[in-house]
Every structure is written in structure tokens, then in C-alpha cells.
């Protein structure tokens, strides 16, 4: 790595790509959510890295963004998993490929 | 208000905690190996063999009649009769158990052996610390391990033991009286009066049966009554049928039936198995 920031960015990109792959290739709705969580986390890593090596760390912009993103991700996980459970109750499956009807 | 019950409970347990250091009466536990609670008199565990006197081998009351062995529901008693005889407590020569084993891993403490024993020879022990590291040999007690003195019996079941002693003493006295009567009768027979003997021995046997309500003891009475008769049989054969018809007869028949049933069942079993083949 030429400099530390790019190292963190590459790791973040890798985790983002892994999360994206998981969200796109897995059949289970919960696994899709797991992939999305990974992507959010990769974004958080980016934010923190940019805050750390940015020109004005004392302004805390990236850090704040990451903290808010963590909070939003928690809410998102709660709602997403609630939806998965609700869908599972209706369709008796959590396989996203079988959730192809508009009427439950 | 919410929580006052909790405070009340906490006060109660605090009282218990502090009180347990102050008053010994609060403590419900007994520190077992050092302290023991007295066992209730009716406590029972596994059977033991009673012996009189100091020598356990000589004083065993058991005459190896094998009634207990036959009656035992889980069949945990194993008796081998001796070839020779030794005198019992009344002085009559009897066979004795050459081998008397009780497998206490099988025994279920039902006390039936005690109830059927005509000789007061087997009683229930209260000893419960029988743990051993050998579950086969260690729990198979032989007659030496089973033998306990009559004094020990008095110690663990005082009321019952004194009753038994009184009964034995009474029987002994009666036997002696009867022996005396027999001797007198023999003397009388010598004086040519044979008809006098029969009512006398019947009178000995008869009152015992109503007094002892239990059939087992009645049977024992018959046995004891029979014993002197046999002793005198050599000199006088006549009283034997007289005593035999009087009461012991149905009992001995029942005993025989009991004794036969397992044997019969055993005999029948191979037949039943063999029948479909034929």
C-alpha cells in the first residue's frame, strides 16, 4: 500500500464487494440482510478512515456520520428482520426467489 | 406498595441468618457421621440371623428349614443344609445352615422371611451403611456377616425382641413341661396306661393355636409340639398321629403347596415350551 488511507479504503472496498456478493447471490432473505449490513459497515470504515486522515479531524464530520450510520443501521436491521419474519409467516419461506407473488 | 413484600422477606431471611449463629435449635440439620438421629423402632432394612449365646456359629437359631428361601419374593436367600446336626435352643439336635447367603442387592426389605420363620431366627436389621466398592461380592452377605447376637436384636428392636424372648421362653417351658409330661407318660405307660397320653399332648398343642393368632406361629407351635413327640417317638409311637390331626395338618399342607408351586412351575415350563414343537 502506498499510504495508510488507501489500505483502509481497499479493505472497505473488499468488504463492500463481499457484502454485495452476499446480498446478490444468497437465497435466504436474512443472508441478504447480512450482506447489506456488511456493506453499511464497509461504508462506516470509509467514513472513519476519511475522518482520521482528512484535513479537519477536529470537526468530527466523518465520525458523526459513522455514528449516525450505526444508529440508522440498527433501526434498519430491526425493521428488515421484522419484515423477514412477517413474510415468513405469510409465505412459510424466507427464500427470496420464492417470494414472487404480490398477494400473500 | 410495590416492594414491601420483598423487604419483609429480606428481613425474615436476615433473621434466619443471624439466628442460625445464635440458637442451635434453629438448625434443622444433623451432622450425620458424627451425630445421628435415633432410628424409629419400626425401622428395618435387610434381614439378619439371630444367634443366642456368645458363639455365633453354635448359637444360630436357624435350622435351615428353607421356608424363608421359598417364600422370599425376589429369591435373594440361598440356603444349604448341613449334613450333621447340632442341638438347637431347646436342646434338640437339628440340622443347621451350612450356607446362608442373602443378596442384599436383590432383597427388597419386605420382611416376609421374618414373618414366615417359625424359629424366630431371621429378623430385620436397621443397619444402612452397607456401601461397598464391590457390587457383587460385597453385597452378597454370608451367614457370618449376617449373624447378630440376640443382645443386638434387643438393642435395635427392644419391644419386639422382648416379645420374641418371652415367647421362646414360654415355648421352652412348655416343651420342658411336655417332655416332663412325656416322661411321666412314659412312666405311666410303664404302669400300663396308654390312653392317658393322647389328651395330654393334645392339651399342650391346642391352647397355643388360639393364643398365637398368626398362622406362622401356630405352625411353629405345631412343629415344636411335634419335636418332642418325635423325640419320644422311639419309646412311644402313639401320640404322633394324635397331635398331627389337631391343627398343624392344614398348615403343613399349605406349606407343602407353597413349596411345590415354584417347583411345579419349573417342571411345567419346559413342557409348555416344548408343546408347540410337537
Amino acid at each position, binding site marked *: 500500500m502506498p*499510504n495508510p488511507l488507501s489500505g483502509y479504503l481497499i479493505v472497505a472496498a473488499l468488504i463492500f464487494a463481499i457484502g454485495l456478493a452476499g446480498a446478490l447471490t444468497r437465497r435466504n432473505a436474512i443472508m441478504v440482510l447480512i450482506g447489506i449490513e456488511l456493506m453499511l459497515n464497509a461504508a462506516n470504515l470509509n467514513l472513519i478512515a476519511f475522518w*482520521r486522515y482528512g484535513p479537519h479531524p477536529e470537526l468530527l464530520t466523518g465520525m458523526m456520520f*459513522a455514528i449516525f450510520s450505526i444508529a*440508522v443501521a440498527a433501526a434498519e436491521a*430491526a425493521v428488515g428482520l421484522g419484515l423477514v*419474519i412477517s413474510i415468513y409467516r405469510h409465505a412459510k419461506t424466507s427464500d427470496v426467489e420464492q417470494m414472487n407473488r404480490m398477494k400473500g | 406498595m410495590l416492594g414491601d413484600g420483598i423487604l419483609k422477606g429480606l428481613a425474615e431471611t436476615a433473621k434466619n441468618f443471624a439466628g442460625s449463629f445464635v440458637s442451635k435449635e434453629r438448625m434443622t440439620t444433623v451432622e450425620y457421621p458424627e451425630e445421628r438421629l435415633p432410628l424409629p423402632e419400626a425401622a428395618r432394612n435387610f434381614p439378619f440371623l439371630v444367634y443366642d449365646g456368645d458363639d455365633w456359629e453354635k448359637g444360630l437359631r436357624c435350622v435351615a428349614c428353607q421356608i424363608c428361601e421359598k417364600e422370599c419374593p425376589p429369591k435373594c436367600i440361598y440356603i444349604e443344609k448341613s449334613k450333621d446336626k447340632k442341638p438347637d435352643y431347646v436342646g434338640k439336635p437339628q440340622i443347621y445352615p451350612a450356607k446362608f447367603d442373602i443378596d442384599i442387592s436383590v432383597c427388597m426389605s419386605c420382611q416376609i422371611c421374618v414373618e414366615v420363620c417359625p424359629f424366630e431366627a431371621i429378623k430385620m436389621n436397621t443397619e444402612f451403611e452397607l456401601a461397598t466398592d464391590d457390587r457383587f461380592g460385597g453385597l452378597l452377605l454370608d451367614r457370618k456377616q449376617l449373624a447378630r447376637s440376640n443382645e443386638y436384636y434387643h438393642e435395635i428392636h427392644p419391644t419386639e425382641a422382648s416379645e420374641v424372648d418371652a415367647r421362646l421362653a414360654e415355648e421352652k417351658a412348655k416343651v420342658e413341661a411336655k417332655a416332663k409330661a412325656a416322661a411321666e407318660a412314659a412312666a405311666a405307660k410303664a404302669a400300663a396306661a396308654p390312653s392317658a397320653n393322647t389328651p395330654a399332648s393334645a392339651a399342650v398343642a391346642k391352647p397355643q393355636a388360639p393364643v398365637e393368632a398368626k398362622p406362622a406361629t401356630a405352625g411353629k407351635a405345631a412343629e415344636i409340639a411335634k419335636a418332642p413327640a418325635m423325640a419320644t417317638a422311639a419309646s412311644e409311637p402313639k401320640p404322633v398321629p394324635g397331635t398331627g390331626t389337631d391343627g398343624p395338618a392344614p398348615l403343613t399342607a399349605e406349606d407343602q403347596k407353597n413349596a411345590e408351586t415354584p417347583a411345579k412351575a419349573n417342571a411345567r415350563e419346559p413342557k409348555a415350551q416344548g408343546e408347540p414343537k410337537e
Partner: protein
Amino acid sequence: MGLVFYLISAFAVGGALAAVLLKNLVHAALALTIAFFGLALLFLRLDAQFAGFAQILVYVGAVAILVVFAILLTKGSEVPKDGVFSKSWLAGLAISAGVFAVLAWAVMQAAPSLPNESAVPSVSVNDIGNALMSRYVLPLEIIAVLLTAAPLGAVIVAMHEKAGKQEKLGAPGPGSPRTSSGSWGGDFVSETWETRKN
């Protein structure tokens, strides 16, 4: 840089890979917590103490548990027979590989112009609190509203509706509500009514 960075990165990336690849969903969720933990360590390495601990508290303590609960509630702990990957997995893989290639290329292109080593920012929790309460107070309030609304919504969505309640809530349809009812009592009433008619 240094060895520690590579170790932690390997930890996080390995956890993420395992989370995506493992067949058993509970294993995947546990691997996900490894990834979260690795990312939290990376945050700590970036001197973002508060964010790192918040990450552990929220993700490992709450989100992972939530995922695990959801897995157990949907009977997801059994491995399905017809494979865990969708039919179009190759396309998904290609897309994500492409995304990674683009991102990595961009990062590598920009690397020389990126800022190099910089001083450790001296940011205490106090500063974060002050910033939250002054400059970022509006986002904070919005997040607070979101965090109140989202769990409520999640609970309502996931709540198991009872048959009786549904009936009470539902508007009376064209038919008689008595005969259309699915409850035991309704069936009983409709049956007797019909038998009487016959």
C-alpha cells in the same frame, strides 16, 4: 500500516467472507459478528474509540442477536436442500467483482494524491458529546425520532396477529360476518343456521 493492520484486516475480511459463504445461517451470523468485531478493531486502530465501542455495542450486542433471533424464528438454521445460492449467482458475483475492481482501481489511482500520515487527532468523548449537542443536534433529533419509530414499526410488522383480532379489525364484508368468520364459534353458528335452512 504494519503487521497489526494486516492481521485485523484479514480478521475482518475473513469474517465477512465466512458470513457470506457459510451454508448454515447461524454460522453465517456468528461469522458476521467476527467481521463486525474486526471492523470495530479497525475503528480503534483509526483512533475512533467512541465509534469502535459503539460498533461493538450496537452490532455485536444488538444487531447480531437480532439476526440470530430472526434466523431461529424463521427456521433458518437448517441448511436447505436445493442450495444456498440463487440461480443467478454468477451474475451477482460478476457485479460485485466489477464493483470491487472499480473501487480498487479508483483508490489506487487516487492513492498518490491521498493525504499521507497525519497527527493523531485528539478527540475526547466530551468533544463528541459537544458536537452532537451543538453542530449535529438536528441529525441527532432526527435519529432519535427514527430510533423510536423504527422499532415500533418493526414490532407492528413482526407481531403475530391473532385470528380473533383480525376479525375485529377487518371491516364487515359483503357477506354476513357471522358466516364468513373463521373462528370456531362462527363455524358452529353458520353450521346450525344452514342445517336449519335445509
